[in-house]
């Protein structure tokens, strides 16, 4: 069990790190998909089957597509503009800040005595139970999420849609 978790962690972290340091945006997007798939595998490992498949459907199926489309739609006209790190200085600053956060978090995790140390049997949460929970105590949140998704869908369409009105500059 633990070995599988470690392997998964290496896969997730490795693909995330490589993805976010590549210069080729398409490659990084595809690697991130691998990372998301790894996270889905982690959910499977933890016994959250439904969430794993939802993660697969949403991230691997939908968000990756949106990202890839966005990358293709915003490709720079000229290749002269560098797309890598804005500057080494900024990268180092970010690394220092991020490393600090990582240190704090890791220290906190390692330093906290956890009461639950022995893992119990994998809890069974059937789809029916999840559905009952969603429609019962969490129905307001479900409704709000529905509204949010509708609004964001409309918003995304409005934002990304071509404007038909041409500004005078464009015609020059």
């Amino acid at each position, binding site marked *: 069990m633990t070995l599988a978790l470690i392997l998964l962690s290496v896969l997730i972290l490795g693909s995330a790190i490589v993805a976010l340091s590549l210069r080729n945006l398409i490659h990084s997007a595809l690697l991130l998909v691998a990372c998301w798939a790894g996270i889905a595998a982690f959910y499977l490992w933890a016994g959250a*089957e439904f969430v794993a498949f939802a993660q*697969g459907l949403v991230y*691997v*199926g939908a968000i990756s597509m949106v990202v890839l*489309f966005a990358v*293709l739609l915003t490709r720079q006209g000229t290749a002269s503009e560098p797309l890598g790190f804005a500057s080494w200085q900024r990268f180092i600053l970010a690394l220092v800040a991020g490393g600090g956060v990582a240190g704090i978090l890791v220290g906190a995790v390692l330093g906290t005595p956890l009461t639950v140390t022995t893992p119990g049997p994998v809890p069974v949460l059937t*789809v029916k139970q999840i559905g009952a929970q969603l429609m019962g105590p969490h129905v307001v949140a479900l409704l709000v999420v529905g509204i949010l998704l509708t609004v964001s869908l409309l918003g995304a369409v409005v934002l990304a849609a071509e404007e038909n009105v041409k500004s005078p500059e464009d015609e020059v």
Partner: protein
Amino acid sequence: MSAYAMAVAGSEPFLERAPLLLRDAFVQLLPAPTQWLVHHLITIVAILAVFGLFFAFTTIAERKLLGRLQNRRGPNRTGVPQFSILPWRFKHTLFGLSQPFADAVKALTKEDIVPAAADKLLHFLAPVLVVAFSLLTFAVLPFGRNLIPVELDSALLYFFAAGSATELTIFMAGWASRNKYSLLAAMRALAQVISYELPLMLSVVPVVLVAGSLSTREIALAQGGWTFGIIPHWNVFTPWGFAGFLLFLVAALAESNRSPFDLPEAESELVAGHLTEYSGFKYALFFMAEYFGLTALSGLGITIFLGGWQAPVPFLGFVPSYAWFMLKLVGMIGFFIWVRGTLLRLRIDQLTRLAWQFIVPLALINLLNAAFWSLTRDWTGALQLVRWVISAAIVVGPFVLLGRKLNAGRAPRTYRYATS
């Protein structure tokens, strides 16, 4: 494993248990620690072998059937290869049934051309992944009463999650070719696949609503039984199920890029779209994945609308369930081929208009219909008739209205032919 235990207990006829018994007999021979692995490997191998062969014969069946639909005979020449070392000559051509193997040999021995500027890694990965992803979906289909590779509680969700992963490979193929036409075609294909994924899922949701489960096993089981001993309780024999099945068929056709929705490939117009830069075995892999996808979608359609592995009439119950499944699968594939031989390719604007103005609204209305159906579950007697009439009205009314609106100002068309 409850189904498995039941099968071993011998409450079912021998034929029904035969595959499991065969597997167990083999697994017993091996040392205990490897049994678990071998158990699963056998399942995988069985799926690969059965559906690999099924794919092979689907190609020849498609070619022969298309021929018949067009008053031709189709390929009927390729028989047994004539090796000179053999002492005798087998003269019969076997109706050309060995054509797929000849094709496979040809595809394997063809030169594999990779464009110089291509992204070599992705160009290689795309066909590999597309086959892998399309095979994933077979894991949750109940091929028979006891033949479910993986029993999942949320099997339908898994099916669509795995199915949507193939979109990535389309993109990879188009992008890795470093050919602007391939890329554009990949974008078109993606747009089509994504926009038909919505109606596909929406047409499945009513079944989930009525069956109250995402598990394919439960859904197939729920369709057992007969009314008056003759009409099976399949979902397709209810008004909403019939409508849902038709919507599912259309969406599945579009989702698997088959005629009349094959415009991303459009081999006669676009030199195969995003597969332009693929040749030889890689192309064959894409071809294979396409057929696997079609087979998996047909299997899903059978499971959720056509009663899964259930026999259509009670007195034929002795035929093993997996045989029924395969028969239905052959029927579905045959129907798809029939449609391909009949209908013309759509234009992209017609395709999207059909999706958004017709299929999606109808699927939503059908969802309401299913809700009505499951709310009125306890209506009996004359009320049962009322239930049917109302449900049928909810199907037919919107269909006629929306159909009229879809055709408004467009029909009848006038065609002009070249005069001879």
